[in-house]
């Protein structure tokens, strides 16, 4: 049978040109197959075509299954309502959605990934919102259904920070689960916390100055996590009664529109020249300080012309007075006149009641010490000042925070600043009530025997020691006293704290308590002694206990407090009923 002639022009023109040559290379196997199988009959050709078709279909299906995703037809977008997002403010963002699928969808749930610092206040519709998971349960939506969702809350973040709110919508489209992702991106433009700062223009090295920082909540949300960061390096800062923790001062609640003024005292540390005084406001979220605003002042720190050195003569404060040694010198080039030192205690527990100084160059008016002469350039002077205090209250682990306000004139200008004396820890308010009783404070008879005491008849008294402590913990507390030779230890006692012992050799009674709490407590020791007056005691008022002392180690000041107590006699002044009946009488 003669070969059929192909009418295919490609085949017909085989061998002509590069493309043709390349095509020829590709077609060669087909030509061979054709020669073998297709030439005489079409069966193999159509079988091969069928096989090829099947293979192509399989590959296509496989590729579709692996790579093809159904395209969701759902519109989801969100944006903040306000043009500028302000940290610390209440703002609202809205999310718009629409079902663009060809048919209804079911079980639509929109999850919001909010910044950790965002505080949700409300959501609308509230009924759809779960504030634990931050999700809106949209449920089933008809084809073409659309709506808006709103979230209102307090935005918190650092000024300039970019934040994201992620939107993740999942829904059921027939048997297929579909997902739509989007996000709201916004920048924090500014903060509601506005700062203003008042300081003097200049400061003296080592000399404290007073300033004020004002912080205002210009937003519409109450803030309870605002704080100020006061400068730590170069400056020593205290903020009065406000607690500073490593430069961080937590502010009380700031209502919308409210301002708070925080006075502070700052002392430039070593180094002269221009120094920046920077105050920042932050919002504290999860122990992280989010910077809100900042204000700075450049202050010129110079050495004061008047150099003042203060030193307390005692290491701790006790009682109601203390001695302060003052040395001052004029480091400037002009005379200093009208030099006045005024003394105040910055702690409310003790106030300065008066001062005194022995030096003739000084005059005292109220709590101020005036240096009468002119202090020439380069001249030095000194004074010992006794400062008397009046207790206004009690505090635990208290200290004197004496401030000396200095005023003087130099070159026609007035200078006024204050310096701080070294802090002086105050010893605990430790005292002992010590007395003998025949009748207790409420009339119970404790003693036995004749009152007034009589010759040859024993009279028993009870000695009661009560320790009172307020301020600091006291350790190694002891009270002791000696029995005169004609007073007998009866070995009867009653304690509510500590231990009592009597040494017959030294005739010493000793009461020890390991620790007295700084807030006080019941610390009492009572014991009985007896005296048998002799004939030679007739008409006298004998001692019952002498050489009385108490001491204790103040754990805060590390000072030992030791005091003497008055001898106790048969006059038992503490006993309201029997006081004064101490003179020995005769038996009959």
């Amino acid at each position, binding site marked *: 049978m003669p070969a059929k002639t192909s009418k295919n022009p490609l085949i017909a023109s085989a061998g002509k040109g590069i493309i043709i040559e390349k095509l020829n290379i590709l077609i060669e196997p087909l030509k061979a197959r054709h020669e073998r199988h297709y030439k005489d009959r079409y069966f193999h050709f159509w079988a091969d075509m069928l096989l090829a078709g099947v293979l192509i279909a399989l590959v296509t299906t496989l590729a579709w299954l692996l790579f093809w995703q159904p395209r969701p037809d759902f519109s989801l977008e969100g944006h903040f309502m306000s043009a500028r997002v302000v940290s610390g403010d209440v703002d609202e963002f809205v999310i718009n959605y629409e079902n663009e699928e060809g048919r209804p969808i079911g079980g639509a749930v929109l999850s919001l990934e909010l910044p950790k610092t965002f505080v949700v206040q409300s959501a609308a519709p509230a009924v759809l919102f779960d504030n634990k998971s931050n999700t809106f349960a949209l449920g089933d939506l008809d084809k073409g259904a659309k709506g808006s969702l709103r979230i209102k809350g307090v935005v918190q973040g650092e000024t300039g920070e970019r934040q994201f709110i992620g939107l993740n919508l999942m829904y059921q489209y027939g048997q297929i689960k579909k997902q739509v992702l989007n996000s709201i991106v916004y920048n924090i433009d500014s903060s509601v916390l506005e700062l203003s700062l008042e300081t003097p223009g200049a400061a003296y090295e080592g000399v404290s100055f007073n300033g004020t920082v004002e912080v205002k909540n210009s937003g519409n949300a109450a803030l309870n996590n605002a704080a100020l960061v006061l400068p730590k390096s170069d400056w020593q800062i205290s903020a009065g009664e406000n607690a500073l923790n490593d430069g961080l001062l937590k502010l009380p609640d700031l209502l919308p529109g409210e301002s708070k003024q925080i006075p502070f005292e700052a002392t430039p540390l070593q180094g002269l020249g221009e120094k920046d005084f920077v105050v920042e406001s932050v919002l504290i979220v999860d122990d992280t300080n989010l910077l809100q605003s900042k204000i700075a002042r450049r202050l010129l720190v110079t050495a004061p012309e008047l150099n003042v050195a203060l030193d307390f003569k005692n290491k701790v404060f006790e009682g109601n007075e203390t001695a302060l040694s003052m040395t001052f010198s004029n480091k400037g080039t002009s005379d200093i006149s009208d030099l006045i030192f005024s003394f105040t205690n910055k702690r409310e527990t003790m106030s300065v009641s008066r001062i005194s100084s022995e030096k003739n160059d000084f005059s005292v008016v109220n709590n101020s010490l005036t240096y009468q002469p002119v202090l020439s350039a380069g001249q030095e002077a000194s004074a010992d000042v006794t400062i008397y205090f009046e207790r206004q209250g009690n505090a635990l682990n208290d200290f004197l925070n004496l401030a000396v306000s200095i005023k003087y004139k130099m070159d026609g200008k007035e200078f006024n600043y204050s310096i701080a004396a070294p802090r002086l820890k105050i010893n605990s308010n430790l005292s002992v009530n010590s007395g003998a009783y025949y009748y*207790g*404070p*409420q009339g119970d008879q404790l003693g*036995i*025997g004749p009152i007034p005491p009589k010759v040859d008849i024993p009279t028993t008294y009870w000695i009661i020691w009560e320790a009172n402590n307020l301020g600091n913990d006291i350790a190694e507390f002891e009270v002791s006293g000696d029995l005169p030779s004609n007073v007998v230890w009866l070995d009867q006692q009653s304690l*509510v704290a500590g231990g009592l012992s009597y040494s017959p050799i030294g005739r010493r009674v000793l009461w020890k308590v390991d620790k007295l709490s700084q807030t006080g407590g*019941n610390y*009492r020791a009572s014991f009985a002694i007896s005296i048998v007056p002799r004939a030679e005691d007739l008409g006298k008022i004998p001692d019952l206990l002498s050489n009385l002392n108490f001491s204790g180690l103040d754990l805060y000041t590390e000072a030992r407090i030791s005091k003497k107590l008055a001898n106790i006699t048969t006059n038992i002044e503490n006993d309201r009923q029997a006081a004064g009946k101490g003179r020995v009488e005769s038996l009959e």
Partner: protein
Amino acid sequence: MLRKLNILILLIAGFFPVLVLAKDTYPKLANYYLPFFRQADYEQLSKWDLLIIQADMIAYNPGFFDYYRTRKPDGILLPYIYSSLIHEERNGFGGLELRGMVYDAVNRGNWWLRDSSGNKIQPWPEISAINVTNRDWRNFYVNYLKNDIRLDLWDGVMFDVVDAEIGHYSRNGIDIDANGSADATSTVNQKWREGMAALFLQTKTMLGNKVIVANGNSVESYQPNTNGRIFERFPTPWEGNGSWQASMYQYLKRLPTKNKTPNIYIINGTSRSGVAGDHRQMRYGLASALMGDGYFSFDNGNSTHGQLWWYDEYDVALGRAESSYYNLLNNNSDYVEPGLWRRDFENGVAIVNATGKDQLYIFPREQFEKIKGTQDRNFNDGSKVNYVRLSVNDGIIMRKIKQDIIASVFPNGNFVRVFNYSGAQQRNGFFAYRPDALPNALVLLEDLDNDGARDRITEQGGQIIVYRSGKSTVRISPYGANFKGKLSFAVYDFNKDGFKEIVVAPLSSGGPHVKIYSATGKMLNPGFFVFDKNFRGGVNLAIGDVNNDGKGEIIAAAGKGMPSTIKILSEQGRTLGSFSAYDKNFRGGVNVAVGDVDNDGKNELVAGAATGGPHVRIFDYAGRLRGQFMAYDPKTGTGISVMIADTDGDGKNEILAGTASF
């Protein structure tokens, strides 16, 4: 051997009722009370330990005998009868059948004692003498005593007018042998004594174990068959030379060796003024009586013997005698002579000044507490003393100063005041302190294991520690080794096995978790929460049968920080009742104790505010307020602890309120 044993048992059994009669605590009080009393007097009469009343009371007040026996199981009742006299009742013996019976018999038998003229002898107006030497009379009389005066209701008999000499009965001589002529006085007296002794013998033989008390003669022949005598108008004017020494010698020395046991002696003092207020005379007699084991009575004398006078000293429970009598001025001699005599008792001392002059005595190492009296307040002023001044012929009863609080948990070192149910202070306050326990620790002195020895239980460092004979034998850490807070505890024998269980709860810090342990420290009940589990103010515990069901209830009072709730729970922790002890706003904590404070046989709950004013409140089990008072100055703001204990040994509880801040 068996026969001897049986006889011994019979003797003891026969003797036992009389042994039971004898009271062994002091003072022993008698009333020689001869009026025909009424039912309204029963209660008062029942206060005395020995009563001599008219024999006719078996007819006039038959109900009195059961009444008295119920209230005074160890009391002694003796009928007043003459040994050989009888009243002449001009109007007949209507209502006095017993006497009529005797009179008729004496008449029929002509047993009168007559003078030489044959007249009946009347030693006192309208009282005729009977010839005791007449055997028929004695036979009749003993039979009469046996059959007619209901001896089953009495503990013996008291014979009045027991004279050893009767010569003074008549100026016309006495015909003792009824031969129509007067006999010599010595013969009369001798025969009289023989007759009287014979009467005693016959009566004693008839009475068996019951007692004969005679008023009153110490003559030798009368003693072997009597149990004792009355020393009327003490010191008895007709005893020896009428001195104190004469009466006391018979009372303390001679007669106890002569009389039958049990000895019954009655020192009967007489008011010199005729009124109750002769306190010194009363004290003189009472203190003298306390030198021996006799009874004391005080009245207006032998003309009336009809007073119900009661004295502050009578209420002092001296307890058992701890010594015999001794002379403070001459300790080496027990010769009964004028002196300053003392006798010691469990709870006090008695001292009598029989020196004839005022005495001042200083106790070199002792201290006592005078009675806090309501009568002679200057003398019994409640003060503590280490010396006494006693006027001539005076005596004093004083209490020993006891400062241990027994069977009630107390804070060591507290100053404690003692009150009665009405809030009246009973004695001087004292420091309750044990040097063998830590200051301010809770301490309990109680016999936990029924061995008769008092154990000491204390809490310390989160542990309950039981000390026996001074050694720590049990240590319990109910809340683990890390718990170091204070504990509240109480003890009670819930299962009636003789061993007390220990109930414990945290007193500060820790939850209100109550646990129960045995006396040996074994946990019996892992416990239950009595208040909200989160409450950390502590629980104050007490235990007692407050609802009279025979079982102990746990009483839990809230500590500081919650309303002042007191809960009553069963041993298993089931709440039986609950009430507020103070105002609903008070959250300062409540201390609590349980005991019978009003002597009505039921336990009350006593609460003390743990902080703030010293306010004591007394409740019944239903939370009804029964009483309240301030234990200290109301301005004392440190609160009080409360305890219940019998501090003076009189068998009645007092309320103790303690404070740490003195």
